[in-house]
């Protein structure tokens, strides 16, 4: 058990920033990003224990991103069910002046965030993975279940789409 905790701890340290960033760019809220990120790693830890020592999770990165994507989808699905609240009663999600707040002050970064948020989901993912997290094409292709050629085409189209949105912001 201790061995598992140690090995998972390394995985956690390696991916916590990436997963958090990935989720934050999709939900644009620190609290929600924290909730989804912690849930992502909790589920991964559960699976990690069940699958070890006999069958290790082969691609932890892909596994984590998959969980995170699904949780984000669930979040938006749930959000769609909630009642519309009057603007007067909306409170800020984050009252603390965290790093995300400082980034928000930077208008260009905010523009980029907004532009990415306007992309369709698979383009968002590919932009984040390829340009932001610097994952390789084979890696991304495996996660998407596509060929490398199709993935390259998709990267090109995603960037083109982002360029269009960024120019409009």
């Amino acid at each position: 058990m201790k061995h598992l905790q140690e090995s998972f701890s390394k995985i956690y340290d390696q991916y916590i920033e990436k997963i958090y960033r990935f989720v934050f760019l999709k939900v644009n809220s620190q609290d929600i990003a924290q909730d989804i990120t912690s849930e992502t790693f909790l589920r991964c830890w559960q699976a990690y224990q069940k699958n070890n020592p006999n069958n290790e999770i082969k691609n932890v990165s892909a596994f984590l991103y998959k969980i995170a994507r699904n949780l984000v989808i669930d979040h938006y699905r749930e959000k769609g069910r909630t009642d519309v609240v009057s603007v007067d009663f909306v409170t800020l999600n984050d009252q603390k002046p965290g790093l995300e707040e400082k980034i928000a002050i930077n208008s260009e970064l905010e523009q980029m965030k907004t532009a990415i948020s306007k992309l369709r989901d698979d383009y968002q993912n590919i932009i984040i993975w390829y340009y932001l997290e610097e994952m390789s094409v084979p890696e991304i292709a495996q996660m998407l279940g596509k060929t490398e050629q199709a993935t390259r085409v998709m990267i090109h189209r995603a960037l083109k789409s982002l360029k269009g949105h960024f120019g409009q912001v």
Partner: protein
Amino acid sequence: MVAEKELIAKIKELKQIKPNPDWASLVKSQILAKGDYSIPEKAPSSGKENVLSLFFSKFFFQPRLKPVFAFSLTLFLFLGLFGFAQHTVPGDFLYPLKKITEQGREFFVSRDDLPKVQLEMANKRLEELTQIVKKNEVKKLAPAINEFHANVEKAAKTLANSTSSNPEHIKALVNETQKIKEQKEKVESMGVVLGETKELDSALSQLAEQELKRFEGQILTDDQEELLKQANKYYKEKNYARALEVILQMSYPQQ
């Protein structure tokens, strides 16, 4: 329009988005402190399984309730066997159980109704015989015929010892006797030789004679006189069941 290189550079600046280190550290310790998930969870079972497992865990694994469980199970199996035995025929392994059930029924029947019940049993033997013939189960023919004769003998003996003159009882006896006659003819038409039922005839003869004597010396109407003559005629022809039918008409004149 921004250049591609510039755009990519701006994307990379989003790396500044990082989680609060204190929060990240707290979450890590919380997650790793969670229970041992290496023990696989049981798949959710169906409602039926839950009920069964609950039942068995309540009874099977409690030492003091084991005798109760064992008794209940034995009783259940026993009743099940008896239930299944009702569909057996002579020659079947569980047929004796069926006979035990029928004999048990006789205990709850009054002495006056006993001949009728026993004649009903004889009719059942003929029904079983009919099934056997239809299925061409040749090996079961002999035991079935023997069972029929045994039942008829038993009914005849009871009838001979009966002293009831109740018209209702006689009517029931006549009905059952007629059924036996019809069933017997049906089975014999299928090629099975059943032989005569002398004991039953003898018992019916005795009953008919007893009833005819009852009306002798009584003041009767013209219709009753006529019926008595008919009854005597059937009696002499050894058609005892028919004689009894006519005698019943004397007891319950038809309007």
